[in-house]
């Protein structure tokens, strides 16, 4: 059996399609919302903000578009890109198709770290929300890796794959519980963003300063990850095989796992823990462009951004008059995908 992949298209054409789709998704995010804003008003706001002559529009419409919908969509894009790329990296390095920052507890750890800074004052002001989230994410990953190693013992790869997932479940639950505990215990709970925010994610609070943090981090992370595409390919047959192909696997793992933790931490500190993006998007893209990382990484970055922009639109409009946590939307898509991958990968093991 052979699948037809988009690999046949030239890189320029595929990238153009991807970027055009992303711009269209951003445009769609501007159009859709509770307040109906006509297209010509949107057009005039964009022209005005980019320094062209444009007729003045209603300041309320202007505010909704420029201060609310657009930064929110851009943060969604950067967040989707980061989480999806983190999934690609974790799946390749840990040789486990079900790996993703949410499932392995990184997101939960990042939430705990951010909450510890925001509510407990951890770090005494020297630590930003993102910094706390990074420490939390690293702690959670360390805990999960340690637990997986203990659970695996000396048994084979099939059990080590299972051990990692179960350790991830344990880690995620533990750190979610810590987050809930800190929020519940704090006298100031009303001021803090709620438990739901840290567990399911929400982009309602996203403004331009968030964009200025999220976009550079996402692009820098994507750059570092792309620079390692050959090392990630070489991991196809495991770490030892990659070593025999001249890859410094220890160094590559250290760099890329740190980048993953950083991407996850920054995005979680801005949007809360959004699940399943790192799982759904890379698998869909493997189906579309194949498993080689030189194509998979750009495809996943673009598709991750598009996916989360659309998921956020869904979160805003699925229930009229109410904003869903975006994690609810991604989980509705992601959980069935998880099930499909689980069944297929267990068949691959037994076959």
């Amino acid at each position, binding site marked *: *059996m052979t699948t037809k992949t988009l690999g046949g298209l030239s890189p320029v054409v595929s990238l153009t399609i991807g970027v055009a789709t992303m711009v269209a998704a951003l445009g769609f995010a501007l159009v859709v919302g509770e307040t109906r804003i006509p297209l010509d008003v949107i057009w005039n706001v964009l022209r005005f903000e980019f320094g062209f002559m444009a007729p003045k529009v209603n300041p309320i419409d202007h505010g909704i578009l420029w201060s609310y919908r657009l930064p929110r969509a851009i943060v969604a894009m950067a967040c989707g890109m980061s989480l999806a790329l983190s999934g690609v990296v974790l799946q390749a390095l840990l040789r486990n198709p079900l790996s993703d920052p949410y499932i392995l507890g990184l997101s939960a750890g990042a939430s705990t770290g951010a909450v510890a800074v925001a509510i407990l004052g951890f770090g005494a002001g020297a630590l930003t929300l993102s910094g706390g989230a990074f420490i939390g994410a690293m702690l959670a990953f360390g805990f999960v890796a340690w637990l997986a190693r203990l659970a695996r013992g000396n048994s084979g790869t099939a059990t080590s794959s299972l051990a990692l997932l179960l350790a991830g479940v344990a880690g995620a639950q533990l750190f979610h519980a810590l987050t809930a505990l800190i929020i519940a215990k704090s006298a100031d709970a009303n001021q803090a963003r709620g438990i739901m925010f840290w567990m399911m994610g929400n982009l309602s609070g996203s403004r331009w300063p968030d964009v200025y943090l999220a976009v550079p981090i996402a692009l820098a992370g994507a750059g570092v990850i792309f620079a390692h595409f050959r090392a990630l390919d070489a991991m*196809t*047959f*495991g770490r030892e*095989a990659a070593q*025999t*192909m*001249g890859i410094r696997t220890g160094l590559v793992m250290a760099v890329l796992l740190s980048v993953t933790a950083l991407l996850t931490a920054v995005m979680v500190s801005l949007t809360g823990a959004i699940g399943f993006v790192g799982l759904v998007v890379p698998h869909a893209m*493997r189906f579309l462009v194949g498993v*080689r990382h030189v194509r998979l990484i750009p495809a996943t970055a673009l598709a991750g951004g598009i996916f989360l922009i659309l998921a956020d639109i869904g979160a805003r409009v699925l229930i009229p008059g109410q904003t869903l946590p975006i994690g609810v939307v991604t989980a509705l898509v992601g959980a069935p995908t998880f099930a499909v991958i689980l069944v297929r990968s267990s068949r691959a093991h037994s076959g």
Partner: protein
Amino acid sequence: MHIQVDNVSKTIQGKPILRDVSFTIESGQSLALIGPNGSGKSTLLRAIAGLLPIERGAVTIDGERVDKLSPRKLAQRLGFVTQEAGTTDAIQVMEAVKLGRTPWLSFAAPFGHRDQQIVEKAMREMAISDDGHKFFNALSGGEKQRVHIARVLSQTPEVFLLDEPTNHLDIRHQIAIIDWIKHQDATVVLALHDLNHAFACDRVAVLDGGTLAAFGSPEEVLVASVIEPIFQVALHRNSAEHIGHPVLTFAKSKVA
């Protein structure tokens, strides 16, 4: 390339796996590592491949210590076909073979026409030219093994290490692999279970409990006085002139 193994010792979790193993293989020669299960064959291969830090001694290829070379330089010279390397990725055969070019590529030197020719030649040598678009995970164990060998071939190393390369192969492909080893210009070290295959090599090293029990030509080493005490079997050499070397047959040891 000339390989020198010099007093190599390795202990894993307090248990000595290799004890003062020393030998030399000249450039272009082939060496069969034989020995009972757990005698240290795989560990020795991994030590030669630079994958395993060793406590004492040194492995050098053409005078350079393998643990001092950069991984990339080492991979350009030395290729290793490990046992049963699997994947969960839906990778196609040609893509898998192309991975062998990894140590030669960089941003400045992307995969080019010459790399493609090397990959195609490797696939022809392993008779998998028509399978390029098949999925690796849909192949039989023997076919997977040939993909791995083709992958390491496209690495164009001067030293090949193979850990039980004829496992999982049917007789025809076993003979093809052994014949390929015989006609290699590269230096080859392989771990073997089928002692008859060792006749194809220039040298045979017998490992027993981590020590080098015997080293020499197949004619010298594959004899009852060496094999019987180590493998605890009775050995009989049958003349088989049509294949050009004796055929060994084994029976339960007479001395318990």
